[in-house]
């Protein structure tokens, strides 16, 4: 997410690395930053105001005469970006009531992802020990109620609905509130309203009526991150009608540059609370402006990664692995388990982008598929006997062939895995004795030393050539021939 905008900004900012900084070239560079923002769907006024603010601060004497003007400028851009998205005081809490039912109303344009987001939010609340209830108040779209019911079933959350022919959205919401209060243990009621255009007066009035009659504690706007300049118009209209408490941005997992995200907050002043980053039910994250600014400027987002890891990793499992490591008994079995833990965080590409300094590596790997490699490794380890996993040294050629056959790989792949594992377990043992800081440094050293160079470790994706697969022997022979000929030629020239 935000790759496009970050590439554009980084590209435009690259001027500060070239030669001396003058007021002239700072202005020119910032003009390009503005272009990048506009291409990323940031609203025209927001982009212009942003650049004016940055320019004001960047061309002053304080920057030019500072020790490191280039870092100073990046610092200014970073600060302004974070401020634009909400600043350090960004409020991503739902303000749940201590007791009683908190009512959360979701609204937005058609197709912005309201129903899916309702499901994700309910899932998030439930996993934090708060009991939610979903309300199908979308009586317009065919089968919207069924969709919410199915979602509710999947995540085990009750869904309140009525027959659309004999009810109205307002009535559904009011009855649902009564129902929730009666049930006793429900703490959050999530109203899934129908999608509507912000210029449709009748439907907007209906929304206001729900707002008046049910008094939701939180009115959240669901906004498609791919929206263009119009995002601002609709957000403004919804905010005027309802006094929004927050915005949820959806579909940030595409290659959208997310400029709408930057604009909505700046124009309406409503904080962005959550972002949807995938189709799966658990792909909803809290929004942190500073972390997002980190990501946009390619500084990674280690905090989200660590939090994610803490939530998703099995703690006992990790502790056990750590002990094994310290004892120097890290086996393939442990390796497989660790790998599966990491997989819970998402795809390798996603993870790498969050680690500072590895974002560029992830970009290099765009046409490779590390996840497939991981799956293959998983398969290979799965095809080994318990004894082999404990003690990979016993794997001879015949065992190797059997493993390859069992996992549908090449014996050479198995060999490579064993070699890599050998090197790695040695390193890990060394690292087990270090503290966190030293460990991070070691990993960084590896990255710089080419250990994590994608070309060295991972295979290119299979290429289907029209000539059919390359014959290794033939290629070797061809090269030999060419060398011979070159040698002959050299001899000839000497004479």
């Amino acid at each position, binding site marked *: 997410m935000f790759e496009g905008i970050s590439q554009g900004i980084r590209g435009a900012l690259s001027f500060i690395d070239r030669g001396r900084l003058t007021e002239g070239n700072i202005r020119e560079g910032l003009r390009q930053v503005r272009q990048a923002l506009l291409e990323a*769907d940031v609203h025209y006024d927001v982009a212009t105001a942003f650049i004016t603010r940055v320019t004001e601060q960047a061309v002053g004497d304080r920057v030019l005469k500072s020790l490191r003007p280039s870092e100073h400028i990046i610092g200014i851009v970073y600060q302004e970006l974070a401020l634009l998205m909400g600043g350090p005081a960004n409020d991503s809490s739902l303000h749940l009531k201590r007791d009683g039912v908190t009512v959360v109303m979701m609204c937005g344009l058609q197709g912005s992802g309201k129903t899916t987001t309702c499901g994700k939010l309910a899932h998030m609340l439930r996993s934090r020990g708060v009991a939610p209830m979903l309300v199908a108040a979308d009586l317009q779209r065919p*089968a919207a109620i069924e969709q919410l019911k199915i979602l509710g079933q999947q995540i085990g959350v009750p869904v309140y609905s009525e027959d659309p022919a004999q009810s109205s959205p307002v009535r559904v919401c009011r009855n649902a509130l009564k129902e929730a209060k009666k049930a006793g243990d429900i703490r959050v009621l999530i109203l899934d309203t129908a999608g509507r255009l912000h210029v449709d007066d009748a439907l907007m009035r209906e929304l206001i009526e729900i707002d008046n009659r049910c008094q939701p504690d939180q009115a959240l706007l669901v906004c498609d991150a791919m929206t263009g300049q119009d995002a601002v118009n*609709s957000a403004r209209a919804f905010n005027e009608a309802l006094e929004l408490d927050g915005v949820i941005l959806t579909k940030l997992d595409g290659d959208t540059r997310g400029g709408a995200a930057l604009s909505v907050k700046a124009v309406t002043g409503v904080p962005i609370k959550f972002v949807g980053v995938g189709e799966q039910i658990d792909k909803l994250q809290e929004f942190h402006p500073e972390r997002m600014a980190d990501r946009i400027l390619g500084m990674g987002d280690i905090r989200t990664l660590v939090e994610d890891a803490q939530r998703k990793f099995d703690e006992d499992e990790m502790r056990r692995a750590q002990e094994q490591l310290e004892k120097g008994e890290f086996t393939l079995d442990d390796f497989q388990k660790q790998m599966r833990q990491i997989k819970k965080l998402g795809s390798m590409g996603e993870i790498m982008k969050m680690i500072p300094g590895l974002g560029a590596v992830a970009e290099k790997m765009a046409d490779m598929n590390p996840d497939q490699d991981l799956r293959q490794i998983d398969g290979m380890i799965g095809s080994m006997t318990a004894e082999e996993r404990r003690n990979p040294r016993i794997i001879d050629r015949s065992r190797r062939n059997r493993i390859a056959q069992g996992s549908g790989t090449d014996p050479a792949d198995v060999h490579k895995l064993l070699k890599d594992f050998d090197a790695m377990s040695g390193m890990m043992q060394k690292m087990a004795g270090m503290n966190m800081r030293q460990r991070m440094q070691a990993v960084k050293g590896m990255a710089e030393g080419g250990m994590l160079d994608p070309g060295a470790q991972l295979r290119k994706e299979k290429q289907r050539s029209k000539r059919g697969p390359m014959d290794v022997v033939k290629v070797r022979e061809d090269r030999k021939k060419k060398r011979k000929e070159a040698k002959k030629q050299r001899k000839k020239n000497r004479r």
Partner: protein
Amino acid sequence: MALFDKLKGALSKTKTLLRTDVRDLFRSGEILDESRLAVFEKALIESDMGVAAADSIISELREQHGGRTVQIDAVWGTVKTQLRALLAGEGEARFDAADPLSPLQMAAGGPTVILVAGVNGVGKTTSIAKLAHFLQKNGRSVLLAAGDTFRAAAVEQLTLWSQRLGCEIVTKPQGSDPASVAYAGCERAAEAGIDCCIVDTAGRLQTHKNLMEELGKIRRVIEKRVPGAPQERLLVLDATTGQNGISQASSFSEAIDCTGIILAKLDGTAKGGVVVAIRQKMGMPVKYVGVGEKIDDLQVFDPDDFVEALFTT
């Protein structure tokens, strides 16, 4: 002309936005200077047409009228010509409004298969219903294939539409292979002698590589059953989409070589200007526009009307 009015109505917001800002801006007799051009640029950018397209219009204006007194008609003339040139692109993008089916390539014999794709929530299913109604109105029999087997209740949504339209539908349970639904749909259409088979697909973000490959597979499987099909591969684009629309168009084209765009949700305040950028960069034409929530609200796209409706009162 009814069609023209409808489109104009849908675009009236755009028009007022452009006109109100711009009429104050370009007053006959005044000098066209940079500050005025900057405000006009803002208006163009706000239509989502992209920096490149807006720049080309602005620079044309600057070249022809910059620093001179404004001749209002001449200025508008330049803007319109430039915009039309951008929209026309290479190749033919003009469809006969009198023949509503002219944008579609129909098969000579056997069923015509129309594959509809797009990202999540752009209005694929609704557009399919409208298109089916459109075809029925023009005397073609239609069969729907509910290829969205991923999203909860998507099949039910299309089934409800098919009941309202009174057309046949081929479905499979949620989670089945969408390509097999498409195949079954084509088979049924061929057997029953139905004219058009419209294949729905699940919404997918263009960055999800395997989902895009799945789309390619659906196309191949259809071709296996009905040679030469799917004759039409339409991308549904939300008019509110910004510059990401370009990425959508290019990725979906890579997967299924799209033949055209249905521009949906043009009834809001969004302008769908991104189609200008798409036309400019990839030459993909807009074939239909969705201008409302009712089943009749689908129109053949006419670039002249599009531009005209933008700039006439």
